[in-house]
């Protein structure tokens, strides 16, 4: 035995899911905080300044590469696990347990994650790609104005609602599940972790959801 099970066992694979998941959650905190600056309602002056810092600071640039790898690892590992888990039950039940013993979203992390991925493609095409193009061309990208243009379209607002909705349910299970996978389960702390996870899963997506809605309705100018 050469400690290989540290990387190959089913528990190790779940550790990767939990660690990358928590890393992606930490990104959400930053992303949500910076974007919430549009609510200052100063024609995006504060928000654009923060966006400029995020797209030019070297530390943030390095973290962005890490974020990309974290996301890819989270997706690839989940695919590997899903394939193995499907193999573990080749014949399905005629009558399935349904919601009698578990929450639907805890059983639908793959579907919710796939919805999130589809949303991410649209989201990055909307904002990430134009920002990068501007940075490479040495121009200043007015992200605030770009948001106004995108969110003027009702279908983009709808896509974003589906995106943050999937995020909410993905987090609702994922946040507390990550701690359990890492072996953190304690009478004192687990109820706290679950409560924080619950409110995080509601608050962060709600703040994100408020952005396209507020812009579409012209509440933020």
């Amino acid at each position, binding site marked *: 035995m050469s*400690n290989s099970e540290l990387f190959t*066992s*089913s528990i190790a694979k779940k550790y990767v899911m939990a660690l990358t998941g928590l890393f992606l959650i930490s990104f959400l905190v930053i992303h949500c905080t910076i974007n919430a600056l549009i609510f200052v309602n100063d024609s995006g002056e504060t928000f654009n300044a923060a966006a400029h810092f995020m797209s030019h600071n070297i530390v943030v640039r390095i973290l962005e590469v890490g974020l990309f790898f974290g996301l890819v690892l989270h997706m690839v590992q989940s695919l590997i696990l899903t394939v193995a888990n499907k193999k*573990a*039950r080749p014949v399905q039940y005629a009558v399935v347990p349904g919601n009698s*013993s578990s929450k639907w979203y805890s059983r639908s992390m793959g579907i919710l994650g796939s919805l999130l991925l589809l949303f991410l493609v649209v989201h990055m095409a909307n904002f990430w790609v134009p920002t990068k193009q501007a940075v490479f061309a040495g121009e200043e990208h007015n992200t605030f104005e770009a948001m106004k243009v995108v969110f003027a379209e009702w279908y983009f607002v709808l896509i974003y609602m589906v995106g943050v909705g999937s995020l909410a349910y993905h987090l609702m*299970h994922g946040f507390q599940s990550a701690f*359990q996978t890492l072996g*953190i*389960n304690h009478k004192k702390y687990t109820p706290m972790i679950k409560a924080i996870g619950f409110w995080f899963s509601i608050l962060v997506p709600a703040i994100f959801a408020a952005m396209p809605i507020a812009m579409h309705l012209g509440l933020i100018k």
Partner: protein
Amino acid sequence: MSGNMNLTLKVWRQKNAEKKGELVTYPVSNISPDMSFLEMFDVLNEQLITENKEPVAFDHDCREGICGMCSMHINGRAHGPKDAVTTCQLHMRSFSDGDTIVVEPWRAAAFPVIKDLVVDRSAFDRIISKGGYISVNTGNAQDANNLPIPKIDADKSFEAAACIGCGACVATCKNGSAMLFVSAKVSQLALLPQGQAEAKQRVISMVNQMDEEGFGSCTNTGACEVECPKGISLENIARLNREFTLASILEEK
């Protein structure tokens, strides 16, 4: 007698491991609400024998909730609609006259169907043989008070030891994961001083065997804890994760 029920059973029939199986419908009548679910199956089998048909093969042994043999997936739930019971402890009063009841075997790649409702759960035995024990010399047992054990640890170990290896956790898990079973078998020893000597090797070997048998991974839906007839807690799975990670980092072999 009044209050007796007429039911429609849809039972999984499969001749052997190789043959394809199917759900077959059987009507049963005059079923007393005081019968256990297995006794109702005895009635069905009597009926089939009189009709010169092959009786339904199903596992059962103690019929008092401690052997873990009665692996039946009833109406989509392991051991039927009640929580914290085995099939023998499920009574027909949990059903009503005219009900249709679907009975299937445990479904998992690691638990192949042998016949009808009987599955091969020897994968669990192979996991246990990889370290689900402590090595002790024969002879007189030492005085119990030589090893002080905090009450809380003793209780948790006892609760984990209540696992009867019935496989309901695997049967109900959407991934066919055996994590609740393995975590109980690791925890009952990891919580006690007697279990420490072999702790690292135990958890690594048992988890490796679990993976080898083709059980899925744990995604923390919590369904196993709900269906477990002995109320084994998810806390054990967190302990297994901890024990496993530390052991695989620290083990020098």
